[in-house]
């Protein structure tokens, strides 16, 4: 029972991490078809922001909370820069964005290595986030995982509300559904794109802050997770968030279960097979935006 619960919780929290990373991708990939391989390096930027803040402002663990908005802005700004300088020129060639942003990610990694040194750096987590909460029945819940889960859920809720209720959100949805029509209706699609990129990259920054609680903070920290996150978006279906949410948690639980029953390697392969099988059934992902496109 404890093990079952522990595994379930582990699965959900793997899903939460995936979701935090995939949310930003769901925006940039889903809306603009940009395959941003540098997303992982925006995560890294968020994590290093946490580190720098702790070094300069305060050594206390609670600088983590300060880091959340700062990392959002830092990573978001980097995203906008990338959009303005490079990606804007490549909207007609979506697959090329993958190659260009791969080059960008190489540069950013080396930059991190030169600025912060090759070895990993450490941040001090608040004491509250290094322990666990005991539940009745001998069950425990790690507080850092709980924090990340909360953060992921909060991000999803905030993003959903923003997309549904704000004028900006309405414009974003209009552009996603029909860019040309949105443009002729007077929406400045270029500006909407830039804003979307800011938010999407900013979410990667948030993910970076969260990951300082779980893993290493180093130049290559972003690369490990990015493929999994892309798979989440692909399987979830682009243009909507709910697909990514469901798939992130489903993959997390699948991986945790598979890993418990076999090994991590086998579990990863199982997840891949499951994805190929799933795409046989729904090649456009779990949810698709209904259009009358022939594509």
């Amino acid at each position, binding site marked *: 029972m404890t093990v079952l619960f522990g*595994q379930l919780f582990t699965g959900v929290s793997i899903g939460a991490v995936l979701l935090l990373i995939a949310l930003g991708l769901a925006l940039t990939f889903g809306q603009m078809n940009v395959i941003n391989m540098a997303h992982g390096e925006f995560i890294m930027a968020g994590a290093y922001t946490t580190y720098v803040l702790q070094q300069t402002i305060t050594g206390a663990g609670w600088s983590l909370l300060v880091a959340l908005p700062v990392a959002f802005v830092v990573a978001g700004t980097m995203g906008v820069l990338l959009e303005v300088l490079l990606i804007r020129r490549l909207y007609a060639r979506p697959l090329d964005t993958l190659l260009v942003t791969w080059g960008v990610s190489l540069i950013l990694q080396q930059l991190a290595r030169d600025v912060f040194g090759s*070895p990993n750096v450490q941040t001090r987590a608040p004491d509250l986030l290094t322990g666990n909460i005991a539940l009745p029945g001998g069950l425990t819940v790690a507080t850092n995982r709980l924090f990340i889960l909360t953060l992921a859920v909060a991000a999803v809720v905030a993003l959903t509300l923003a997309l549904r209720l704000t004028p900006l959100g309405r414009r974003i949805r209009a552009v996603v559904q029909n860019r040309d029509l949105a443009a002729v209706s007077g929406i400045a699609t270029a500006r909407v794109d830039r804003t979307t990129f800011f938010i999407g990259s900013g979410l990667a920054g948030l993910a970076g802050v969260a990951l300082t609680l779980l893993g290493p903070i180093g130049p290559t920290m972003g690369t490990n997770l990015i493929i999994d996150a892309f798979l989440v978006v692909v399987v979830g279906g682009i243009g909507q968030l709910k697909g990514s949410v469901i798939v992130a948690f489903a993959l997390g639980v699948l991986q945790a279960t598979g890993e418990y029953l076999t090994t991590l390697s086998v579990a990863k392969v199982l997840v891949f097979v499951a994805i190929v099988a799933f795409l046989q059934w729904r090649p456009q992902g779990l949810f698709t935006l209904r259009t009358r496109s022939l594509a």
Partner: protein
Amino acid sequence: MTSFRGRILAGALTLVATAALAACGSKTTDAASGTGVSADVSGDTVKVGLLNSLSGTMAISEVTVRDSIMLAVEEINAAGGVLGKKIQPVSEDGASDWPTFAEKAEKLISQDRVAAVFGCWTSASRKAVKPVFERNKALLFYPVQYEGLEQSPYIFYTGATTNQQIVPGLDYLKAQGKKSVYLVGSDYVFPRTANKIIKAYAEANGMTVLGEDYAPLGSTEFGTIVNKVRSSKADAVFNTLNGDSNVAFFKEYTSAGLTAESMPVVSVSIAEEEVKGIGTQYLTGQLTAWNYYQTTPGAANEKFVAAYKAKYGAEKPTSDPMEAAYVAVHLWKAMVEKAGSFDVEQVRAAAGGITFEAPEGTVTVDGPTQHIAKTARIGRIGADGLITEVWNSGQPITPDPYLKSYPWASGLS
């Protein structure tokens, strides 16, 4: 040549030309036919190669080794060089990619004509360059603890082999009355081999191995493994994870409520540099098995630590692989001077019995195995990020890469 026949002709010509040129191959299978490239020592300098990953995932560890080698080179040059020649270091980036290591090794040997190469970290990179060094009859000094079961005539192993690190670590656990262990490792050669040795040791010494889990290199998701470890209720964990995975593992371990008191972890790949990257709040009290710590007493170490910090910054710690790399350069110098030549065969012949007052204590080159007799030290990680010794083997342990002198290990190699 648009005609089909024309193309066939072109294709046929290509094949014939290829076959003709390919037939120039020589079927000689004489193993000694490999041509040694001799080092270029004509000028007043001698080149040595530095082969480390300066980019990619392994850069987190290997850059510090490169720094340490550079320090040793500078020291030797300041003291007049080797046989009156200044050392000129040539650095190459292995880029955390094994075929690249092989390519760069070949380049250092055949293009730069270096007298020796220092570097490599992962076993995979060493395995990739080993044939290159053997073919060219060139020297590699490998500075990292490793899984043993290897003895190349053209490699000097200045890190620990298994009987100088893992076996003493197990001896220590046994002496502490730990009856059961859980094995966690990265999925590659060193952890898998180490765990095989641990299982053989456990069987012979009345310990039980409650579980064995591997994570892919670079994996940062340890929820499941820690769950398994916790529910196993083992007395201790033997940790052979490498690199980034350690960070994630210990963060998860702490979150699960496991501590050095409730379930100590003995790590063999966490040195001072890694402690800094993981965070002391997750590590305080945990154990490590090495041959050197920054806190190891002795004048040689004080000098090494002071010189390193003066060159690279006061906040930079020194660690076992860095020390082993530093020692490697000095040992090479001693070998060359004893041989009176840079010639590889003469250097090898002179190697046996050479000693050096290393930061870790006196080390001696074991001629037959080309490993080094080293003292094993178990350390405890302190809240200040430094590791202090809690036990040592008393005297240098003779290297035994194939564990021939341990009866319980007879089935291993």
